[in-house]
């Protein structure tokens, strides 16, 4: 949870000074989040690319215990409303920060350089792999989703999964290096973006593979 370091925040409910906590330190009423609060701040974490998963989970559980609607069921309408929105924010923070890829994407947004939803351009490093996979998928569809082509595509799926996993692991290693220098530096952001688009592209390809294999099962 957030610590009351620099803030002289006053609780809307009991009017006592409560700092920048998710819930009032005195009356436990959920506090409205500052509009510009980033999700690191929501869980009381420093703005860094590396996040310790155990610490993150502990913070998430503690924050949930404080703000979850189950804890404010018998309170006033305003408290219940605040609890609902704070809880949704805490959930989003945890969902984003626990996954290194989602965390990376959020980092880019935070630095005004979002990845964007549509990645139509094939990252050069993947061009050959993508082309080959598309051909294999086409062959599987022509074969009615069965036969030797299915075995080939299943093998490709395994390779793609391994590759995405390896890229995500590599990303985490880079996070430590970048944090040690300057994680907001333009060259770091550019490199992060390149790596994330590779992962995004492979993930989309993996979805296509899964979908084609599933079509085969229905046929």
């Amino acid at each position, binding site marked *: 949870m957030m610590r009351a370091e620099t803030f002289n925040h006053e609780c809307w409910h009991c009017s006592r000074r409560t700092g920048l906590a998710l819930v009032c330190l005195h009356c436990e009423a959920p506090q409205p989040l500052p509009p510009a609060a980033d999700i690191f701040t929501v869980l009381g974490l420093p703005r860094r690319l590396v996040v310790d998963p155990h610490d993150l*989970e502990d913070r998430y*559980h503690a924050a*949930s*215990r404080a703000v*979850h*609607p*189950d*804890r404010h*069921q*018998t309170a006033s309408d305003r408290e219940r409303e605040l609890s*609902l*929105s704070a*809880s*949704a924010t805490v*959930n*989003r923070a*945890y*969902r984003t920060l626990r996954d290194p890829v989602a965390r990376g994407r959020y980092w880019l947004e935070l630095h005004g350089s979002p990845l964007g939803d549509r990645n139509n351009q094939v990252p050069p490093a993947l061009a050959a792999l993508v082309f080959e996979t598309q051909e294999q998928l086409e062959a599987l569809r022509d074969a009615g989703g069965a036969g030797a082509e299915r075995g080939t595509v299943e093998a490709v799926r395994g390779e793609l999964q391994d590759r995405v996993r390896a890229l995500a692991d590599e990303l985490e290693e880079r996070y430590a290096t970048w944090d040690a220098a300057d994680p907001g530096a333009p060259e770091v952001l550019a490199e992060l973006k390149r790596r994330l688009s590779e992962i995004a592209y492979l993930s989309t390809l993996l979805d296509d593979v899964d979908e084609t294999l599933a079509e085969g099962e229905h046929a």
Partner: protein
Amino acid sequence: MERVVGIDLGTTNSLVAVLDGDSPRVLPDPETGATLLPSAVAFLPGDEVRVGEAARALAAERPFDTILSVKRFMGLGLEHVSEEDRRRYRFVEGSQGVVRFAVAGREVTAPEVSAHVLRELKRWAEAALGGAVSKAVITVPAYFNDSQRQATKDAGRLAGLEVLRLVNEPTAASLAYGLNERAEGTIAVYDLGGGTFDVSILKLRAGVFEVLATNGDTRLGGDDLDARVTELLLAELPEALRSHPQIRAQVRAMAERAKRALSDAARTEVELTTPDGRRVQRAITRDEFEALVKDLVERTGRPSRQALKDAGLEPADVEEVVAVGGSTRVPLVRRYMQELFGRPPLVGIDPDQVVALGAGIQAGILTGGRRDMLLLDVIPLSLGIETMGGVFTRIIDRNVTIPVSHTEHFTTAVDNQTSVDVHVLQGERELAADNRSLARFSIPIEPLPAGVPRLECTFLIDANGILCVTASDLRSGRERTIEVKPSYGLTDEEIERMLEESFDHAEDDIRQRQLREARIDADTILHATQTSLARHADRLEPGEGDRIRSALSALAEARDGEDHNRIRDLYDQLSAATEPFAQRIMDSALHEALVSRPLEEL
């Protein structure tokens, strides 16, 4: 403080529980002591309704008017009703696409039928707790969509219960299990009930119950196993009997009993008496039963594997598998669970009670009774909106922890457009038409050139898994009220109307009860007076016998009438007329007792 109860509103049976101190307990029927209330409602002519065992007993006699398994129809439209169900009940289409049952000269929706079950449980709870109960936690299958959840909430409202929370059944079960076993780690809850199948993967840590993924099939349960046996038995009957609704209902009940028997025995016999008095006997073996239902049981495999996959786990990562729902008593189901998760299922708590006990715990959590426990549940199905070309655009993914919110921006496509229409759906398919329509709504805007208006729409899924939508005009900063038309649900006005009607009926119900009670009291005094007149005629004063006899016949006549006040009045008159007579009998009885005792005792 008023107690909040937890209710398992099941397909076949329903239960009510409460948290007592630190642990939950199931509350019984005050008359019979039973803890399972069959989720059966029978509608009789003249507005009479029977619930539970009394209703189930009428199923064979009045198959169309006795609704069993109403849960399978919650939040559905007529187009979702199967052929078999259309043969079983009479349906009419109501407003908002909601199905209505035509029963005993009237039409009722699924939430109204469920409300009768809830009202009965409320009565049980009030009797057990000795006070009014008006708030409840109600469980729903984890895989219930928004419409089905809303319908359950409506049923609660109609029964006079404020539904504080809808809890997913497997999650509720995990609460009871976690409390009982003090478990930590990753567990799978496999819940095969009467009509629905759910599987949830959870992580239990330091009092936090976090659902990692859930999946299921809201149209698969013990009822389907019964249907297979029913088909088998019906196929062997002569054609003329096969289509007979009463015979079908009788065979259905027989099939259900045979299924239960085969959980313990390798062989069972069923016997049917036909209307012409012939008896038909047949033996069923467990092997034959298992061959009949094997494919149904295996239909639980795909959702189980998908839930594991969505949780990012392998079967070996699951440390414990919890069996929930009566259908997990079937040995084939248990063997299949073991095959899926590689370990024998845990059946420590009665699979019929575990969900209700969990609901009782959740009721306690909400009222501060268990501050140490916290549930973090997920949305079972992705939520999205229809976009250009009938495409389903996902805005909230399945298995995301709730509450969750998502903000979407809209603008206009043509000049001077006065509203933006949004169609919300739920499901996993690519095309909007293949998913379940939840609601349509229209956001009013000021007429401006195309693309100029900027609307912000927030989709919030609350802790019940129910969607709330709010919108604001970013240009004016004004909140916009949205009129949401549920695709398959009751509107607020309809619920209000039903509530008013049920209050009218509630008056009828009270009158009926007062009449019944007055008659019972009348019978008691009539019987006692007649006995005393016969036995102690010698103790009557002159003229007293005639006075008593005339009061007696007046009450006897009123007792067969409908006016409980008149019965009460005449009861009082008879009671007054007999009082001196009764006193004399008492005195003489006492005198006799005294004189017949040995002297030394006095």
